[in-house]
């Protein structure tokens, strides 16, 4: 059976959830082989988790250079593996970095690039959710190797033990003349909330929330539900909430079990990022707001009244 390479996403010595999803998808196409590109001493901390989700092999590519450059070390490692292993496919998370690593790898290896995939079938057919979820399209690579980026949260991870046989490989030296150098990192402070794209409940606030301080109302409701917090672009542009929480066409695409929109009109570009949610709840004081066209349950009313009452009722029930 051909190998299917999975580029491992990790931070702080832990495997990110999306990697379990990728390993699960990889097993449908062939034999999952995890690829860890990291600074020395990292792979050891990750191997148990990778084994638990079916990694038959772990390629360990460790070098100090990995912390000095963004994409280049991973692209170099994967390009060499594609040449030596001839995998059926390479699976990479559809994050900002992942998409670029995949694109560069596709260029270097002349492989088909299947981007932002939400489902992957055993025969290699990939499903994409396009135009903000208003279309489903299926595609295939016409090349021997497919480079596929998979949207986080779209494939249900299944644990299944793998042999996780480690194989040490080299990180090819980065060409400093053609690669931008990292001169500073300012990581985001991670909040105690689930990640937006992974959360099963998302509570978002829009311009109607009125100020950055008022976003506490959104956060409190989110916390009562164990939810992630999102925001509309108008809320982000007004400085109410940071950019990385923007939901929509040019922000995150989320597809949770429950999406709660507070003071969001429901412009087409916002809907593009959330309309595939299972259940949509909207609170808006304007009965004509387009968000009500797609809400499963809508309340025409003032969010400053409804949201705190809701938070209280939910907290009580959980009691």
């Amino acid at each position: 059976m051909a190998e299917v390479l999975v580029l491992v996403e990790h931070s702080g010595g832990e495997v990110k959830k999306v990697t379990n999803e990728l390993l699960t998808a990889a097993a449908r196409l062939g034999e999952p082989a995890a690829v860890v590109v990291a600074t020395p001493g990292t792979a050891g901390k990750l191997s148990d988790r990778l084994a638990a989700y079916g990694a038959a092999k772990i390629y360990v590519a460790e070098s100090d250079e990995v912390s000095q450059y963004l994409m280049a070390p991973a692209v170099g490692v994967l390009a060499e593996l594609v040449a030596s292993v001839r995998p059926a496919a390479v699976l990479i998370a559809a994050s900002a970095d992942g998409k670029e690593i995949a694109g560069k790898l596709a260029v270097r290896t002349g492989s088909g690039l299947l981007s932002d995939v939400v489902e992957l079938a055993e025969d290699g057919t990939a499903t994409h959710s396009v135009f903000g979820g208003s279309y489903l399209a299926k595609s295939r690579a016409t090349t021997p190797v497919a480079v596929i980026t998979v949207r986080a949260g779209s494939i249900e991870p299944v644990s299944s033990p793998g042999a996780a046989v480690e194989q040490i490989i080299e990180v090819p030296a980065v060409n400093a003349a053609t690669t931008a150098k990292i001169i500073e990192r300012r990581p985001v402070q991670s909040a105690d909330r689930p990640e937006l794209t992974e959360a099963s409940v998302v509570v978002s606030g829009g311009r109607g929330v009125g100020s950055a301080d008022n976003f506490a109302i959104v956060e409190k409701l989110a916390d009562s539900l164990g939810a992630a917090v999102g925001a509309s672009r108008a809320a982000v542009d007004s400085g109410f909430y940071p950019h990385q929480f923007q939901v929509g066409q040019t922000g995150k695409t989320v597809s949770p079990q429950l999406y709660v929109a507070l003071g969001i009109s429901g412009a087409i570009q916002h809907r593009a990022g959330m309309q595939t949610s299972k259940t949509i709840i909207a609170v808006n004081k304007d009965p004509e707001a387009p968000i009500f066209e797609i809400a499963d349950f809508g309340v025409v009313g003032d969010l400053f009244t409804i949201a705190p009452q809701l938070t209280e009722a939910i907290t009580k029930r959980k009691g």
Partner: protein
Amino acid sequence: MNIVVLIKQVPDTWSERRLTDSDHTLDRASADVVLDEINERAVEEALRIKEAGGGEVTVVTMGPPRATDAVRKALQMGADSGVHLADDGLHGSCAVQTAKALAKVIGTLGDVDLIIAGNEATDGTVGAIPAMVADVLGLPELTHARKVTIEGHTVTVERDTDEGVTVLQAELPAVVSVNEKINEPRYPSFKGIMAAKKKPVRTLSLADVGIATSEVGLAAATSTVIESAPRPPRSAGQIITDEGDGAAQLVQYLVGQKLI
């Protein structure tokens, strides 16, 4: 400073966007098309760099004949000239072919110091063309920039992603992609609109840039769409007006759906 801006005409996100039934490519004929908003910001950034340090701004697009309108819009904003790669043979090209073709076009423009693109297009959301073009050209990429600084021959950007901000630096020539927090693009002025009429736009064919028709298009694409279908639209559910018990009814609904 010679600056190239990569721009793309896309279906307006405000309009209904469709795929064609015949070959599942973008239905460009039925859509209202615009210069992608992120590319207005890319043009704006190029103009600001030019205004600060001098130079020339050339916009480059690959797309069907009507994409010339997008080039014109960029010229109205203040770009100096445009290059449009338009050829029937390009129809259905994949991302790898697009990146290679754009690199070929850039290769015909002489000494280029800086290439600026959007971080992700609103029609395909590949989010990788700038990095891929950089790879083909053998240039460093500094992508997802919310801030760009040029000092002498050094470019520094603040890359803004979920991970936080990463400050990247490279020597020119380089490829930069910008995110939507970079700037507010200017509106074309009346003077700009008039001036744009006289600015040169060169339309190039595949032969002009040295690409064989066998290298591009649907038949040679490294990936192909085999099937597409619109998702059934969502319909509205139950809408109530709050008369004091709105929150209570909402809780009941959530309980009924086993969501809490």
